[in-house]
C-alpha cells in the first residue's frame, strides 16, 4: 500500500523527462571491482520475492477492517451504529449493525479468500526454479532467492525471473529473441543484444570469470526506457565502459524464444522489476453520474441535518412547559433528569439523526456498485461486439464508467489502426517520379496508374537506373523487420500471407512489413540478418550482402529512421526513410518536385507516404558519425537528447530517391460509425500523427468531413504566411458570423477544422509578450466548438493528451472519450473521461490501459449508442429512485414526530426499518437497473439522435432530481396524512375477533405504522413498475415477488411470539389490519392517489412534449398496433431476419424526424455519392452499408 504510493510519486516525478533519481551499481557475480576502481559498496536491494498479497495471518483483521471502513458507506454505517450504541436510541442498533456486520463479514471472507489465492500464486512464482551461475557451475535455486548481481541462465521458452542485462547468448552474434506478450501484448519477436565485450562468454566458467560492474538508474516503470553502463575490468587495464540501453535489458515476464540459452545478470529484482512497477493502479476515473450522485447526497445530508435540527428545536420549544415534557404518566428516569440540558439536546439531535439516517440511501452504494459490476457483463457478453477474426469480444477493464458511455460529447479517435485497419498494403513506389506498381496486387491497374504519370518527365538512363537500384536496396535495408522462418507464430498477427509460406516478416510496424513485402513483389527479397550482414536476393537471383553498421531508430519526433550499411564493395551508405516533411528539408539533390507532386497526390488519396533518401558517406564521415553515435550512446545523462542531436547531425545532405505509398484500409463500417456518432450529437475529432493530406483523405472517406463541409485550416503553412493571431481571429470571425446568420437561414454550414501539431503547441503556449491577446486558447476553443469535425494531424502522443485535457477543461466540461489502438494513444486514453482501446495490431498497450477494449472501431457504435444509453438510463433511474424511495420512507417518520411530541418515536417497526432497503425494495430496482430497455436495441442503433435525449446528464439534472424528491415528499404526505385521517378521531377499527363477531377493536401506533409502511412498499414498487418499459419474466418475478415477500414476511413476523425478541409489538398487527375493511379500502385509495400525479405527468409530457425517445417508442408501439411483425418487438432474436417491408415502415418515421432537424441525412447521402463518383480511389470496404438495405 505505502509502497505503491511512494512508487506513484516517484513515477509521477520521473515520467516523461530523463530525471536521474539515483543510480545503482551492480557487481556482477558479487565480485569486488579491482582496487583501482571505487570502493565496493554492498548495496541492499529487495530480494526477488513478488508480493502481491495484501495481508498476513496476523494483520488481516485489523488491516481489512481498516480498509473496509475507509469506504464512506461503511463508515457512515459504523458511525450511526456507534451513535446507536451510545445514546438512548429510537431504533435498535441492530437496524444498522446487522447489515453492517453482514457486509463487512462477507467482504472480509471474500477478500481473505482472494488474498489466500494470491499468497498461493505468489508462492508458486517465488518458488519456481531458476538456474543460477555460481562458482562456474549452474545451481538450481528458487526464484525468490535471486539477488541483484546474480548471474542467471535462462533457457528457451523460459520466462525471465527478474530484470536482466544480457551478457551472452547461445547465438553467435550475441543476440536473443524475446516476446513480451505478457507485458505489452506484442507478440512479435524482439531482438535484444549483448554488449560485444561479453558476448563471447559461452560457458558458465567463462561467464563466471567476468569481472564487471553495471551502473544503471534506479528502477522506473517505463518498459522501454533504460540507461546504464557496464564497466568491464580486465587484467591490469582500465575498465572498458559500454553503454547499456533498453535493447540490453530483458524484462521480467518476457519469454526467451528461438535462442538456446542465455546468460544474464540480475539488476532489478522483486518489486523493483519493471513489470511489478507497471502493475500499479491507474488513477481512478469518476463518472458524471457519480458526481451528481454525490451532489444529491450532500443535499440529502443537509436535509437530514436540518430535519434533525428542526425537530430538536421544536422539541425543546414544545417541551417548554414541564407538563408537556414530563406529564405525570410519563416521567423521566433519574439519570436522564440529572443530565445537563445541552447534553440532552445534543443526544436528542443524534437520536433524530439516527431516526432519519435512512434518508441517506446507504444501500444505494451497494446497489450501484453491484449494478455496475454485474451490468458490465452485458458488454463482455455482447456477441455483436465479438470479432471472429481476432477471437475476442469486448473487454471491460473498469465497470465504473458504464453510464459514462451514454454521456460522451467529444470523441477523440486515433486514425491509424482505429479508423483504419492498420493492415498495410504496398500500393506503389515512385522513383524520381517514375511509378512502380507491384503486379501481384494491382493486376491491370498498371495502365491506369501509368497514364496518370505522364506529366512526369521520364528520362531513362544510367542515372535513373542507378537510383532505382539504390531505392530498392534502401527499402530492403532500411527497416527493423525480421525474417521468420518458422510458422508457429500466430498468423493473425502477421496480416497478409504472401509468397513462400516458409518465411515471412515480423515487425512492430506494419508499414515496414508492407514495404519489405512490396519490395519482394518488385523483385528484391530481404532474406535475413546474419552476423550483422543483411542479405538481399536481388532481381537476378543474386544474393547481395550489406554489413549493417548502425540503426538510427525511428522515433515520433524525428519521424524518420536510418541505417548505415557497408556494401560489399566497401562503400558506406546511409539510407533514410521517413515522412516527407522530415526528409525534404534535408534533401540537397534529387527530383524533389516530381516526387513531392506524387507524394501529395498519393496523400490526397489517403495513402500513407514515405520518402526515401540516401547519402553516401566517405570513410572519414563514417568515422565521425560513429564517434558521435557512440558518444551519445555512452552518455548516462540526457542520452535521448544527445542521441537526437547526433542523429540530426548525421541525417543531412540527402539525395532524394523516391517515395512509397502504402494503403491503410478504412475499417469496416468506420464511416457509418462516425456518421452515427455525429448524428448522436458527438463531436468527433481525429488525432493522428499522420500528415495532413493523408489524414484529411481518411476523414473524407470516413465521412467525418463531407463535401459540403467548409474546411478551416490552422496549419503551419498558414501561420507562416499570417501571424497566428490573425489566423485565429479570421477563423473565429468566419465561424461566428456564420452562427449569427444561422439563426435565420435554414441551411446550416458545417465547418471542419484542420490543425497541426506545431500550430497547436503555438496556440496552447502562453504568450508572455502579448498579454492582452495572449489567450488564444479561448478563441481556439470557440472555433472548435462551432466546428462539427476537427482533424488534428502531426500530433505527438503527448499532444493528443493535451488536446483532450484542453477540451475537458473548457467551460462546459464536456465528457470526452478517447479511442485508440497504439502505445501512442495511451496518454489520451488515460486522460479522457472514458478511454477505449482497440485490440489492434500495434500491441495491447492501449487495450490494457483503457477502460474498455473493443476489437474494432465499428463496435464503438453499439458501445455508445446502445450500451451507453441503456446504462445511463438505468443508473439514472436507479439513483433517482433510491432517493425517492427513501424520502417516501423517512418523511412520514419525520411528520410523525409532530404528533408524538418530538419524542423520536419511530413510525415503523425495527424489522421494517432494517429490511426496507435490504429486501423489500432492493431487488426490483436492481433488476430494473440491469435489464431495463426503454427502447429496442435496433431502434437505438438505427436512430442515433436518440442519444441526444440523455446527453449532458439529462436524467440527473437538478430539475429532475427536484421532481423526484417532490414526488417522494408528496407521496410521503399522502401516506402519512391518509393514515392520519383514517385514524384521527374516528373508529378506524379492527374486527378484533377475526371475523367471528362484529366487534370493533382499536388500533395502536404500530398498526398505524404498518399501514403507512404497507402503502409505502406497494406504492414504491408500483412506481417502479410504471417506469418499467421492458417487462420480462424476471421483472414480473421480482416485482410481484417482492410484494409477495413483504406480505408473507409481515404475516410471519406478526404470526408468532418470537422468543428472542424482548418486545412483541408486531404480534398480529398485520393480520388485524387486514381483517379490517377500511384498511383495505384505505390502502388502495392511498396507493392510487400516490401514483396518480406521476402517471398524469408522464402521459401529459409524452403527449404534449414528447422527446425523441418517446416518439420512437410510439413508433414501435404503433407498429405493434398495426400488427406488423417487427424484429424490434417480437421475440425473434435475430434483427437481420426481419422482413424488409416492416423494417422500412419503421425506418421512415425516424428518418423524417431527423429530416426535420436539418435535412442532414439527405445531404449526407448526396455528398457521399458525389464523392464516390468524384474519386474512384476511395477505399471503402463496404461502401453502402450505412443503412439497412431496404432496396428489395
Amino acid at each position: 500500500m505505502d509502497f505503491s504510493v511512494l512508487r506513484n510519486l516517484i513515477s509521477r516525478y520521473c515520467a516523461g523527462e530523463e530525471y536521474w533519481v539515483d543510480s545503482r551499481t551492480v557487481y556482477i557475480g558479487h565480485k569486488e571491482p579491482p582496487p583501482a576502481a571505487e570502493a565496493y559498496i554492498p548495496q541492499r536491494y529487495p530480494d526477488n520475492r513478488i508480493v502481491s498479497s495484501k495481508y498476513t495471518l496476523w494483520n488481516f483483521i485489523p488491516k481489512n477492517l481498516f480498509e473496509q471502513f475507509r469506504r464512506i458507506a461503511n463508515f457512515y454505517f459504523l458511525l450511526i451504529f456507534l451513535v446507536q450504541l451510545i445514546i438512548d436510541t429510537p431504533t435498535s442498533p441492530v437496524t444498522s449493525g446487522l447489515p453492517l456486520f453482514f457486509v463487512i463479514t462477507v467482504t472480509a471472507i471474500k477478500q481473505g479468500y482472494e488474498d489466500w489465492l494470491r499468497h498461493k500464486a505468489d508462492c508458486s512464482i517465488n518458488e519456481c526454479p531458476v538456474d543460477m551461475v555460481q562458482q562456474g557451475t549452474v545451481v538450481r535455486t528458487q526464484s525468490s532467492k535471486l539477488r541483484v548481481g546474480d548471474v542467471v541462465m535462462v533457457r528457451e521458452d523460459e520466462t525471465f525471473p527478474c530484470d536482466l542485462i544480457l551478457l551472452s547468448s547461445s547465438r553467435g552474434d550475441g543476440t536473443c529473441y524475446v516476446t513480451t506478450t505478457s507485458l505489452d501484448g506484442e507478440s512479435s519477436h524482439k531482438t535484444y543484444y549483448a554488449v560485444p565485450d561479453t558476448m563471447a562468454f559461452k560457458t558458465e566458467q567463462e561467464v563466471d570469470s567476468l569481472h564487471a560492474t553495471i551502473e544503471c538508474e534506479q528502477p522506473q516503470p517505463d518498459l522501454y526506457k533504460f540507461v546504464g553502463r557496464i564497466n568491464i575490468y580486465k587484467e591490469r587495464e582500465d575498465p572498458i565502459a559500454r553503454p547499456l540501453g533498453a535493447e540490453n535489458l530483458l524484462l521480467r515476464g518476457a519469454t526467451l524464444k528461438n535462442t538456446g540459452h542465455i546468460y544474464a545478470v540480475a539488476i532489478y529484482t522483486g518489486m523493483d522489476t519493471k513489470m511489478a512497477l507497471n502493475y500499479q493502479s491507474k488513477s481512478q476515473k469518476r463518472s458524471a453520474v457519480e458526481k451528481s450522485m454525490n451532489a444529491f447526497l450532500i443535499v440529502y445530508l443537509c436535509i437530514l441535518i436540518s430535519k434533525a435540527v428542526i425537530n430538536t428545536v421544536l422539541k425543546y420549544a414544545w417541551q417548554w412547559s414541564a407538563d408537556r415534557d414530563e406529564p405525570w404518566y410519563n416521567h423521566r428516569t433519574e439519570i436522564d433528569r440529572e443530565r445537563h440540558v445541552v447534553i440532552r439536546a445534543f443526544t436528542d439531535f443524534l437520536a433524530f439523526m439516527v431516526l432519519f439516517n435512512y434518508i441517506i440511501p446507504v444501500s444505494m452504494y451497494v446497489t450501484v456498485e453491484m449494478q455496475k459490476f454485474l451490468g458490465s457483463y452485458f458488454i463482455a457478453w455482447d456477441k455483436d461486439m465479438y470479432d471472429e477474426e481476432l477471437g475476442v469480444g469486448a473487454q471491460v477493464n473498469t465497470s465504473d464508467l458504464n453510464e459514462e458511455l451514454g454521456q460522451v460529447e467529444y470523441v477523440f479517435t486515433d486514425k491509424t489502426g482505429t479508423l483504419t485497419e492498420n493492415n498495410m498494403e504496398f500500393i506503389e513506389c515512385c522513383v524520381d517520379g517514375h511509378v512502380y506498381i507491384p503486379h501481384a496486387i494491382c493486376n491491370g491497374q498498371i495502365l491506369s496508374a501509368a497514364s496518370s504519370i505522364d506529366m512526369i518527365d521520364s528520362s531513362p538512363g544510367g542515372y535513373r537506373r542507378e537510383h532505382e537500384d539504390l531505392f530498392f536496396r534502401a527499402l530492403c535495408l532500411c527497416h527493423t523487420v525480421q525474417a521468420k522462418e518458422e510458422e508457429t507464430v500466430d498468423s493473425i498477427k502477421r496480416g497478409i500471407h504472401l509468397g513462400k509460406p516458409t518465411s515471412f516478416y515480423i515487425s512492430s510496424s506494419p508499414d515496414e512489413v508492407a514495404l519489405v513485402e512490396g519490395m519482394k513483389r518488385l523483385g528484391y527479397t530481404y532474406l535475413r540478418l546474419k552476423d550483422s550482414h543483411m542479405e538481399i536476393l536481388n532481381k537476378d537471383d543474386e544474393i547481395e550482402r550489406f554489413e549493417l553498421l548502425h540503426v538510427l531508430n525511428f522515433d515520433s519526433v524525428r519521424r524518420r529512421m536510418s541505417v548505415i550499411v557497408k556494401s560489399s564493395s566497401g562503400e558506406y551508405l546511409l539510407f533514410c526513410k521517413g515522412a516527407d516533411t522530415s526528409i525534404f528539408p534535408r534533401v540537397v539533390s534529387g527530383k524533389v518536385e516530381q516526387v513531392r507532386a506524387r507524394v501529395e497526390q498519393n496523400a490526397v488519396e489517403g495513402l500513407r507516404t514515405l520518402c526515401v533518401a540516401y547519402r553516401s558517406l566517405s570513410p572519414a564521415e563514417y568515422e565521425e558519425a560513429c564517434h558521435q553515435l557512440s558518444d551519445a550512446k555512452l552518455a548516462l545523462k540526457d542520452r535521448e537528447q544527445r542521441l537526437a542531436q547526433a542523429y540530426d547531425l548525421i541525417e543531412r545532405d540527402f539525395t532524394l530517391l523516391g517515395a512509397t505509398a502504402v494503403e491503410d484500409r478504412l475499417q469496416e463500417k468506420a464511416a457509418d460509425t462516425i456518421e452515427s456518432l455525429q448524428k448522436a450529437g458527438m463531436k468527433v475529432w481525429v488525432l493522428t500523427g499522420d500528415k495532413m493530406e493523408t489524414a484529411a483523405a481518411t476523414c473524407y472517406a470516413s465521412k467525418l468531413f463531407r463535401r459540403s463541409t467548409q474546411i478551416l485550416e490552422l496549419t503551419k503553412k498558414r501561420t507562416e504566411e499570417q501571424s497566428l493571431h490573425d489566423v485565429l481571429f479570421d477563423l473565429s470571425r468566419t465561424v461566428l458570423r456564420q452562427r449569427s446568420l444561422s439563426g435565420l437561414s435554414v441551411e446550416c454550414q458545417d465547418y471542419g477544422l484542420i490543425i497541426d501539431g506545431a500550430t497547436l503547441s503555438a496556440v496552447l503556449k502562453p504568450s508572455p509578450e502579448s498579454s492582452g491577446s495572449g489567450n488564444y486558447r479561448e478563441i481556439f476553443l470557440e472555433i472548435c466548438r462551432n466546428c462539427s469535425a476537427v482533424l488534428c494531424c502531426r500530433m505527438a502522443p503527448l499532444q493528443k493528451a493535451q488536446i483532450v485535457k484542453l477540451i475537458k477543461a473548457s467551460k462546459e466540461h464536456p465528457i470526452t472519450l478517447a479511442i485508440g489502438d497504439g502505445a501512442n494513444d495511451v496518454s489520451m486514453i488515460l486522460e479522457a473521461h472514458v478511454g477505449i482501446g482497440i485490440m489492434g495490431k500495434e500491441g495491447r498497450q492501449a487495450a490494457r490501459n483503457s477502460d474498455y477494449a473493443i476489437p474494432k472501431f465499428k463496435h464503438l457504435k453499439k458501445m455508445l449508442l446502445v450500451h451507453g444509453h441503456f446504462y445511463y438510463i438505468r443508473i439514472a433511474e436507479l439513483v433517482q429512485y433510491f432517493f425517492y424511495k427513501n424520502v417516501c420512507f423517512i418523511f412520514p417518520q419525520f411528520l410523525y414526530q409532530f404528533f408524538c411530541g418530538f419524542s423520536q418515536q419511530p413510525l415503523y417497526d425495527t424489522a421494517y426499518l432494517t429490511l426496507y432497503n435490504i429486501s423489500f425494495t432492493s431487488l426490483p430496482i436492481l433488476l430494473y437497473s440491469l435489464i431495463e430497455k426503454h427502447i429496442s436495441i435496433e431502434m437505438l442503433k438505427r436512430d442515433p439522435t436518440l442519444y441526444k435525449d440523455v446527453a449532458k446528464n439529462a436524467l440527473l439534472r437538478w430539475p429532475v432530481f427536484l421532481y423526484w424528491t417532490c414526488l417522494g415528499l408528496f407521496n410521503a404526505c399522502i401516506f402519512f396524512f391518509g393514515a392520519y385521517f383514517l385514524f384521527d378521531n374516528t373508529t378506524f377499527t379492527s374486527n378484533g375477533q377475526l371475523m367471528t363477531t362484529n366487534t370493533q377493536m382499536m388500533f395502536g401506533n404500530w398498526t398505524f405504522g404498518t399501514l403507512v409502511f404497507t402503502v409505502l412498499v406497494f406504492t414504491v414498487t408500483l412506481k417502479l413498475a410504471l417506469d418499467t418499459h421492458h417487462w420480462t419474466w424476471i421483472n414480473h418475478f421480482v416485482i410481484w415477488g417482492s410484494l409477495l415477500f413483504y406480505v408473507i414476511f409481515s404475516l410471519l413476523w406478526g404470526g408468532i411470539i418470537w422468543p428472542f425478541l424482548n418486545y412483541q409489538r408486531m404480534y398480529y398487527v398485520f393480520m388485524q389490519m387486514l381483517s379490517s375493511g377500511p384498511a383495505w379500502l384505505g390502502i388502495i385509495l392511498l396507493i392510487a392517489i400516490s401514483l396518480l400525479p406521476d402517471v398524469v405527468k408522464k402521459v401529459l409530457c409524452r403527449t404534449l412534449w414528447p422527446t425523441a425517445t418517446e416518439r420512437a417508442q410510439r413508433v414501435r408501439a404503433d407498429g405493434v398496433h398495426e400488427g406488423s411483425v417487427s424484429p424490434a418487438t417480437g421475440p425473434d432474436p435475430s434483427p437481420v431476419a426481419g422482413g424488409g417491408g416492416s423494417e422500412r415502415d419503421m425506418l421512415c418515421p425516424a428518418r423524417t424526424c431527423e429530416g426535420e432537424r436539418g435535412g442532414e441525412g439527405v445531404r449526407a447521402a448526396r455528398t457521399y455519392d458525389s464523392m464516390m463518383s468524384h474519386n474512384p480511389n476511395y477505399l471503402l470496404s463496404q461502401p453502402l452499408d450505412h443503412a439497412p438495405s431496404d432496396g428489395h
Partner: protein
Amino acid sequence: MMASSYNAKEEDRHQPGATGHVGSGTMTNKMPDNTAFKQQRLPAWQPILTAGTVLPAFFVIGLLFIPIGVGLFVTSNNIKEFEIDYTGVDMSSPCYSCSQSYSWNNTKSCTCSVPFSLDQPFESNVFMYYGLSNFYQNHRRYVKSRDDSQLNGDKTSLQSPSKECEPYRSSDKPIAPCGAIANSLFNDTLELYYIDPNGSRTAIPLVKKGIAWWTDKHVKFRNPSGNNNLTVVFQGTSKPVNWRKPVFELDPSDSDNNGFINEDFIVWMRTAALPTFRKLYRIIQKKPNNMTPTLPRGEYILEVTYNYPVRSFDGRKRMILSAISWMGGKNPFLGIAYITVGSVCFCLGLVLLSIHYRYGKRNSADISS
C-alpha cells in the same frame, strides 16, 4: 451476494503484482453465448403509458371509486355517534369539582353524574368508548416503557422487569405490570343510566368482555402460570405506583378477566397512534328482542367515578357512544376521499381524452407521414 460483488471490483483495482488474473472475471476470450438473456433480448411485454392506454384506466378508476365513495359516505353518515366531554373544565360542568379537587392520594373517589339526551335511538350493538386528548401515548419514552415478557407471564421478568420500564420498574419490590403505560392505566369508571320518562333510572348493562384483540387476550397477555390463585403468583411484586389496587384485583369477579389478561388493561396497553385517541370501553349489546332499540331516544345519565387526572396536561376526557357498520365506525374521510379521487380521475380522463384527440392524432400524423 450483495457484499461480495460490491467489493469485487475494488479488489481488482487494488490488486497489484504477478497474479493479475485472480479477479478479472469480465475478460472473455471466447465467443459469447448467444442466449436471450446475455444478448439482452429476453422476450418482454413493453407497455407504454400514453393517453390512449391510460384513458380507460382513468375512467375505470373513476367509475369504481365514485360508487364506493358514495357507499362509504352514506354508510358513514348513517352511523350514529354520540360524544360527551366530561372533563369538567367549565364551572358549569358537573365534574368540575371532581377535576379540581383531584389528588393521587385521595382514598375516597369522587363521582359525578353527567346528564345527556339522545335525539335518535341506537339500533344495533353500541360501543362505548372513552376518549382522551392531548395524551401522548405514542411518546417514545412511554411506548417502550413496558415489558412484553412480563406481560406474557414470564416468571423471571415478573421478578426483574426489563430496564425499559424505568422509572416505573420497581418501588421496593419489582412492579408488575411495570412501565409507564401500565402505570397510567385509565381508571375512571363509567356507568350509563337511562332515565325513564317517569323519572326512574335504569342501569344499562355494559359488557366488558370482548373488547380486546382475541390474540392479545389469549396469546400475548398471560398471567404467570403455576397457580390459579393470582395473589400467590404475584407475590413479591408490588402494584404500579398510581394504581389503587394490585393487578390481581382488577376484576375479582371474573378470574378470566383478572391480572394481565384484564381486557381493560389490554386495551390500554395497545398504545394509540395519535395524541387524541379513543379506546373501547364497553359494549352495549343489542337486546334479544329486536323490537326495542339498544339505546332508545331519551334522557341518560353518565355516572363517572372520576379518578383520572388530565387537567395537568390540558387533556380532555370524553365518553363516546357509537354504532358501527360493515366498514367500521363513523368515518366520513374515506367516503369523501373516494368520491374526490374518483371524480378527479374521471375529470382527468376527460382531459386526457381531449388531449388524446387533439395532440395524439397530430403526433402520430407527424410520425407516420
